[in-house]
C-alpha cells in the first residue's frame, strides 16, 4: 500500500487558482490546489493558525491565503509565511496525463488525528 496512488479527479475538476476538498474515510479533508500554470498541490485542509479550511482561500502564486485570518500558507511546504509560524501537513501529489493522484497510505493515515475547531452551542458544551 505504501507506494499505491489513489486517483482523485481530473486536473480540470479543480478551478485554476482554486481548489477542491477531498473527503477521506478518516480525518479532515485534504485540499488540492491548482496554480495558474497547472501545478497541483495538496495540504491538509486546516490552517496551522486556527484550523481554517484552506480549500476556501484565495490561491496566488504558490500560496493560499487562509479564509479566516488571512495567513499565507505555502502550497509546496505547508509552511506559514514569515513572520507567522506554523505548518500544515503536506500530501504528495502525482499528476499523470491530467489525472490527479494522492498517496493511498497518506490518505488513510496522515494527520488523521487533527480536528477542526468547534463552534456554536456545541462549543459551550465542550467548554463546560
Amino acid at each position: 500500500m505504501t507506494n499505491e496512488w489513489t486517483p482523485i479527479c481530473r486536473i480540470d475538476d479543480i478551478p485554476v487558482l482554486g481548489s477542491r476538498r477531498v473527503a477521506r474515510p478518516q480525518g479532515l479533508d485534504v485540499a488540492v490546489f491548482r496554480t495558474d500554470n497547472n501545478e497541483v498541490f495538496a495540504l491538509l485542509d486546516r490552517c496551522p493558525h486556527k484550523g481554517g479550511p484552506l480549500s476556501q482561500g484565495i490561491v496566488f502564486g504558490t500560496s493560499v491565503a487562509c479564509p479566516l485570518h488571512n495567513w499565507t500558507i505555502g502550497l509546496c511546504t505547508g509552511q506559514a509565511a514569515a513572520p507567522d509560524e506554523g505548518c500544515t501537513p503536506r500530501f504528495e501529489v502525482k499528476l499523470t496525463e491530467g489525472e490527479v493522484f494522492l498517496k493511498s497510505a497518506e490518505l488513510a493515515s496522515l494527520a488523521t488525528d487533527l480536528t477542526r475547531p468547534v463552534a456554536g452551542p456545541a462549543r459551550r458544551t465542550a467548554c463546560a
Partner: protein
Amino acid sequence: MDMRVVPKTKLKLVMVGNGMAGVRTIEELLKISPDLYDITVFGAESHPNYNRILLSPVLAGEQTLDEIVLNSWDWYTDNGIHLHAGWKVTSVDRAKRLVHATNAAGETLSAHYDRLLMCTGSKPFILPLPGKNLQGVLAYRDIADTSAMIDAAAKYRHAVVIGGGLLGLEAANGLMLRGMSVTVVHVHPTLMERQLDSVAGKLLQQSLEKRGLQFLMGAQTQALLGGGGDDGRRVTAVAFKDGTQVPADLVVMAVGIRPNTELAESMRLHCSKGIVVNDTLQTVTDARIYSVGECAAHRGIAYGLVAPLFEQAKVAANHLAQFGIGRYMGSLTSTKLKVTGIDLFSAGQFMGGEGTEEIVMSDPFGGVYKKLVLKDNQLIGACLYGDTVDGSWYFKLLRDGRPIADIRDKLMFGESNIGDAGHQGHNKAAAMKDSDEVCGCNGVTKGTICKAIKEKGLMTLDEVRKHTKASASCGSCTGLVEQLLIFTAGADYSATPKTKALCACTDHGHQAVRDAIKTNKLLTIADVFAFMEWKTPNGCASCRPAVNYYLISTWPKQAKDDPQSRFINERSHANIQKDGTYSVIPRMWGGETTAGELRRIADVVDKYKIPTVKVTGGQRIDLLGVKKEDLQAVWQDIGMPSGHAYAKALRTVKTCVGSEWCRMGTQDSTQMGKDLERAMWRMYAPHKVKFAVSGCPRNCAEAGIKDVGIIGVDSGWEMYVAGNGGIKTEVAHFLVKVKTAAEVLEYTGAFCELYRTEGWYLERTVHYVNRVGLDYVKKRIVEDHAGRKELWENLQFALDGEPDPWFEFDKAAVDTRQFEAISA
C-alpha cells in the same frame, strides 16, 4: 518571468559606509536577489550596523550598546558579506572602479566594484570656535561619542550642550540622567525652533527645567576655555559674547548635521546639499553608483529620518537587483522627540504664514498645547505638545490634502474623540501598564508589543503589524502603537510615501489602478497586471479582489467577474464561520416577513439540523452552522432571495414600523425601506453598505449611523450619509432634504453609484467621504442635477438583470463544484 541577465560570475557590489540605510538596502537586495552580487562593505566604525537613533536611550541608561546592534557579526558572515569594519575609504577610482581604504594601523586595501553604494551618512557640524579641539569637546553622532559622554559623566560634573534641537536635548537629558549638571545653550529664543512654534517650545523648556536641565536661551558662544585636566588641555568653561561664563568639563556640540560628501566630492560626483541622486537612487553623475541615506540629496532634500531612508533602500535594492521597478518619489516627514515622558509632534508648515489660519488649543497648566495650521481649506501643518495621539491622523490629513471644511469644527479634538473603541480610551502609551491592552481586535498588550519591537528589532508600523497583529485589523490603535515604537525603537516612523501602494505586488495606489482601468478600458485582471507592470504573476489575496471589484464596477456588463479573485464569502455566497461552516441570511425586504417564510425557515432549520438561529442587528434572520454541502439545498428550500450578508454589497435596509402602524409615525418608512432595498439589492460596492429608514425624527431605525440613513419628517425625508456603527462610531452627515419617495431613491442611488465608482476597495462610505470631503459629495449629488440623474441611471443600468446568486448559478458565475467534496 525572470528577464534578468544573470552573469556566470557574480557582480561585485561595494558599499561605502556600514550604517542603517545602506545595510537596509543590502537586506532588501538579499531578499529579492540573494545570489547576484559578491558584497563588500567598508565601515569606518569598528562596529557592526547598529541603530543610531537609539544612542539617546543608551546615553540615558535605558538600553545597552549590545541591545541596539541591528546586524550581528554573524549576519555578515552568514550572508557571505565581506565586512571591513574599522576601514575608512580614502579614495575611489571611478575609471578603474576601485575603492581604496585604510585602517587605524595604516594598512591599505583595495576592492573592485561593478556597482558602488555610497552610504556615507552625515557628520556633525562643529562650530569654528576657539578651543573646539580641547579634550572633552565632542559631537554626538556615533558609539565613540556616546561612550566618551558616558565616561565623562562618571568622572566630571558640569556639562554644556550647545544646541537646543532634537539631538541636543536628547544628549542633555541623557547626561542629566547620568548625574551631570547640564546647561543647554541655544542661540534662538526657544527650543527646537525648526520643529516647534514658540509656545510649544516654551512648554517643552518648562517641562525640561522641572526635570533639572538649565537653559541659556539666545546665548552666543564665543569660545571654549581650556586649562583643565592633568595636562591642562581639557575644557573648563564656555565663554559667551556678553562676557559671562559657564563651567564645563564636557561640551557637546549638537548644532546640526551635514551630509558627508567629502569622498563623493573627491570622486567628482555632483553634490549639492548631498550626493545628488535621481528617483532610482543612482547618482546623476555615474549610473554605476547609488547613494541612499543621509548623504543622498533627492530632489534637493537629504532626509535624516529612518522611514524615508528605508523607502530609498527598497527602491535602490530593486534597481540593484536589476528588476528596474519602482521610483522613490520623496517623503513627507514629521518630528517626534525621544525623551521618555515628553510627547511632542510636529509636521508640515506648523509656523503658519501668509494666508494661513490657525486653530489653537492651549492648556499650559495641564501641559497640553495643540496648533493646527490651515490654508485654502486644507490642513498644512500641526504642532502638538502633551497629547500627540492624533499626530498620525493629522499627518494623514496633511498628506492627503483632504478638504476640511466639513470637519473643521471637530478637527482639534482629533479622530479618537469620536467613539473610539477597543483600547479603553487610552491616548498615552507611556502611561499604560504592560498588561494593558493596546489592540482590542487582536488582544495585544503593551508588553507584547514592546517585547516584539525589542527582540525582533522591528522598525516600522508595518513590521509591528505583521509580527504582533497590533493595529492590523481596525487600525484605531495606530496612534498608540506608533507611540510605543517611538519610545521603544526610537525612530520616527510616521514618514510615509506620498501614495500608498495597493499591496506589495505593485507600487501603484488604489486611485492609479482605478484611473488606469477607466482611461485604458482594461477589462480583465490579467490586462491590469500587464498594463501596470505588476510584480507578481497573479497578484495576492489583497490586490486581486480589489482589482476584480474595480473592473466590474467601472465596466458593468463588459468586465467579467472572476470568482477566484473573490474572498470565499462572495464565492460561496454565504459567510464562513470559525469552524468552516457557513451562515445563511435570507433577504427580508425592509425587515418584514410572513408566516410562510418563517415556516419555511423553521423547516429548513429542522431538516438540516442547523444549530443556531439568530436575529441580526439589521433585522434579518441568521442561520448559523450550515454545512457547505447543504448550502444549495438550504437556499432552495427557503426560497427567499440572497441577503448578501456575506458580501461587499448592499446588506440590509433597516426600518422602523412607520406611519402604517405607529401612532407617532409621519412617513411610511417600511414601504420606503422595501422600495430602496428592491431597487438596490445585488449592488456590489467597495465595502458593505447598510441603509436605514425611520418614519419620524425619533429615529427608531438608527438611521444616524448608516451608510445612507433616511428620516421621515412631516414635510418629506431627510437624507444622511456616511455614518458608521462599527469600529469608530461615526454620525452620518446631513446631505439633503427631499419631498418624495422617488427623490429618496434617486439621491440614494446616485450617492451609492458615486461611492461605487470612486471608493477604494475596503473603504467604507465614511472613509470615502472623509477622503473626498462632504462638500464634494454635495456638489455631485445635491447641486449637479443632471449629474445626479446620470449616476442614478448608471446604477440602474449596472443592476439591471443582475442575478440572484442563490438561484441563478450560471449567470452569477457560481462554481457549484465547490459545494461537494471529492471522495477518495
